[in-house]
């Protein structure tokens, strides 16, 4: 329950920050900005889904986390770590070949890491975790 509330607070803070960013930007949005916005909304949507899942579990009297969900989280962390390593190598490789500045590339890297975590979690959560 406590963790679900923390998830909602973090999601709300991210949404407020995005709102401030949109209202303060005077220039028209570039393709990269739109892409970043889509990824942020996807990640926040995912966080809200996790928060609601935890809340419904608490209401049903189930534990918010059990051994399977912890194993899924652990393996998700491992997978997304590997993906992130390759992502940063790819970003280092393309940094001289694109018109994006350093801040945008770092932003893209961080958003890519968040996205890779979400994708890895979705795969593992629906595929299951076996001791292969």
């Amino acid at each position, binding site marked *: 329950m406590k963790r679900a509330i923390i998830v909602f607070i973090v999601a709300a803070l991210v949404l407020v920050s995005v709102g401030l960013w949109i209202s303060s930007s005077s220039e028209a949005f570039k393709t990269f900005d739109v892409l970043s916005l889509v990824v942020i909304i996807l990640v926040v949507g995912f966080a809200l889904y996790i928060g609601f899942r935890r809340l419904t*579990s608490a209401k*049903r*009297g*189930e*534990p918010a986390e*059990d*051994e*399977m*969900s912890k*194993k899924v989280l652990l393996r998700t962390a491992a997978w997304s770590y590997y993906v992130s390593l390759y992502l940063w190598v790819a970003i280092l490789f393309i940094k001289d070949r694109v018109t994006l500045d350093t801040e945008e590339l770092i932003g893209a890297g961080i958003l890519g890491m968040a996205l890779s975590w979400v994708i890895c979690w979705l795969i593992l959560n629906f*595929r*299951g*975790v*076996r*001791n292969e």
Partner: protein
Amino acid sequence: MNNRIKEFRARFKLTQDELAKKVNVRRETIVFLEKNKYNPSLKLAHDIAVVFSSKIEEIFIFD
């Protein structure tokens, strides 16, 4: 590793929700166990065996 949780659950007239509460896990975990998509820890296997008053090897079949 295969298991006979679904069969035992039907024999004991338990829903997935009820079994999940008895062994203190989420319902999704029972769903994944029955689909053979998750191998439980020794503790969970033991808890399930206790609920069904059976031995672990009667419920979980090791290939």
